[in-house]
């Protein structure tokens, strides 16, 4: 079985983002970038499938600028076998990413595709679902457990208020949630080995995909600062306010 994993280069989750003073976007100059945490979980799950003997090959693919080869290498250091980088401008829209990935899937013919449920920069939560739609494949989003049986994968999904399990016919697309696994650390020898693993670079033109602009980013602003409210003098007054003014109890 072949597993395809998608990975995205995003700002490191420890780094506080700052909106540029001209409100054109957030400032990413010289900030630490990293593998999107949900993608890291996706890589880990694929590698575990390989270690368990269920998967024979794990291919990682990333769409974006040249710099995202660094994240492909990280995924290779975590245990993926081979990388594909589709070189585009900085952060293409989810639908365009899905179209590019769909071509890769058509070409690679994986049995299982694992993506992160969302990227922590755009917080879109779309690419996996869109990819499934374009390929007309079943989807198991927000997965907290995967079980492979003959020709199907059972995915336990984190849904509002509990868990739901669905059975998907392979090939299928799974998007990862936080509790699916705890990713390993890349070891030094594996980081060195990863430098020698194959990494293929393609362009949208190579894949025959014409990307389109669907949205325009008008501006990016910092969130409104919270203003202090009023001081109450007693518990009675507090309860009163919560009941009748704020109506939250």
């Amino acid at each position, binding site marked *: 079985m072949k597993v395809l994993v998608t990975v995205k280069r995003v700002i490191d989750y420890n780094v506080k983002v700052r909106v540029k003073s001209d409100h054109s976007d957030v400032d990413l100059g*010289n*900030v630490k970038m990293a593998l999107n945490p949900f993608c890291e979980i996706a890589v880990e799950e694929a590698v575990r499938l390989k270690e368990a003997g269920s998967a024979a090959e794990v291919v990682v693919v990333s769409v974006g600028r040249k710099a995202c080869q660094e994240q492909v290498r990280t995924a290779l250091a975590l245990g993926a076998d081979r990388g594909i980088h589709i070189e585009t401008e900085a952060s293409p829209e989810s639908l365009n990413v899905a179209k590019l990935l769909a071509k890769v899937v058509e070409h690679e013919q994986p049995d299982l595709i694992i993506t992160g449920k969302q990227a922590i920069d755009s917080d879109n939560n779309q690419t996996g679902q869109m990819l499934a739609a374009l390929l007309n494949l079943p989807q198991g989003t927000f997965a907290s457990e995967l079980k492979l049986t003959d020709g199907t994968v059972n995915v336990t999904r984190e849904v509002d208020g509990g868990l739901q399990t669905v059975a998907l016919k392979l090939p299928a697309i799974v998007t990862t949630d936080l509790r699916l696994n705890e990713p390993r650390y890349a070891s030094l020898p594996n980081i060195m080995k990863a430098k020698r693993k194959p990494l293929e670079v393609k362009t949208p033109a190579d894949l025959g995909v014409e990307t389109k602009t669907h949205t325009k980013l008008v501006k990016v602003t910092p969130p409104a600062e919270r203003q202090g409210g009023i001081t109450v003098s007693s518990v009675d007054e507090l309860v009163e306010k919560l009941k009748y003014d704020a109506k939250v109890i």
Partner: protein
Amino acid sequence: MRESMEFDVVIVGAGPAGLSTACRLMQQANDAGQELSVCVVEKGSEVGAHILSGAVVEPRALNELFPDWKEMGAPLKTEVTEDRIYLLKDDQKSSKIPNFLVPKTMHNHGNYIASVGNLCRWLAEQAEQLGVEVFPGFPASYIIYGDDGQVAGIGTGDMGLDEEGNQKDTYMPGMDLLAKYTVFTEGCRGHLGKELIAKYQLNAGKDAQHYGIGIKELWDIDPAKHEPGLVLHGTGWPLSFKESEGGASGGFFLYHAEDNQVVVGLITDLNYDNPHLSPFDEFQRMKHHPLIADTLTGGKRVSYGARAITKGGYNALPKMSMPGALLLGCDAGTLNFSKIKGTHTAMKSGMVAAETLFEVLKISNEGGQNLTAYGDNFKDSWVYEELYTSRNFGPALHKYGTVIGSALNYIDQNIVSLPFTIHDNYPDYNQLKSANAYSPIDYQKPDGVLSFDKPSSVFLSNTNHEESQPCHLQLSDYSIPLGKNLIMFDEPAQRYCPAGVYEVIEGEKGSKQFQINSQNCLHCKTCDIKDPTQNITWVTPEGGGGPNYPNM
């Protein structure tokens, strides 16, 4: 079982010194067509993440290392256009020192305002292109010694241990990186460097090393006030230099960098004797001085960080070679304090090391020799010359106070060289007087506009450490913080730590507890330097932990 890998040279720390060593080594190997395996380990999550500097950078070493660095895109973009030096007389008044009285070491013509972190990011790219393996996120946590007592490499830290040191699910053992030669370039107060200095008595016959703590912020300012290339330095208020208020010295800097940003910082010498002093609060109140406030008002703070600085200079510079290893850059103490610049000297110390190493590796495959030739090569270089001529600077300030000390320095550096060397042999940690000797300093509450509290400052350093891991701030004796330091010095760690890591908290019924919030640590090393009983040892936390400084 720990796995191991072998290299010709292992370099600890991807700062200016380590990366210059790596680049120069590989340049020579590539020129000679010789295979050489060089790796650099770095504790920060990426190269540059733990680098905090001013900085006005003198390009002398870079010119030698990459003569066409400009075309290659090195991030030295803002040339210094003007130097101004001030004496802050009190919280309102200041006077500009006339140019002719300024020591020539403080002239910055031809230098660049730059982020040393970004310079290191760039140097790391060059190193990788030359064939160096750079491993960020991997701290060297201990030294491996060979059978003959030589340094034989380092071990990287284990990952995935819990508070008690038990293995978690994600446990991954560290690795032994064995090397013919190991180069230690951990920067100021490297924790392995400290071990080497003690083990090989590298500082025998030298003066005690001295340190300062630099606290720095990056600000976006009103474009109308921005004068790219302008460099301000000064001393005086708020650090008291009257004997009655305790002897704290130091100086501030304010540089106008690119993109409407300025950096502002205060270096407080760590030989201060008033335990109530808080370098963090001194810095915060300093920003209210009109000279600085005028520039910052209307701006927004972008980043915060702190780092100790090694300032003992020539008199305290230890021997830099030992069997199988070299100790370079600020890890040894090559900073020129009369210029407050250590980047170019650190780089040069690394380049000389690379040349010395390559000479040896060219002819002998055996490692582990004592590279005493380094001492001579270093002596022949311009770094030595620079450090020697400014050897009296720090001690004069320490001994005679900022004013007379500056005067002596002025004479020494501009008119005639003093025919003698001033020594200052009291280590910083045993300078504190008892808490009763001074009354507590009344620092104003931060206003949230120019001055801030510690938590919101630490927030901007992007520091983080994996929640569950052994504490990387080790106490030799758990009873000292409350049993001794609290009583005698009102536990100064509460104040000298720029990240609020150490707290004495009052429990119920007045009971006290000493708490270490190690997650906040900025890796500045001040606690390791200043704790009055040397009870705190900073060791490397899990790889990747610590600040994530952009552009610092």
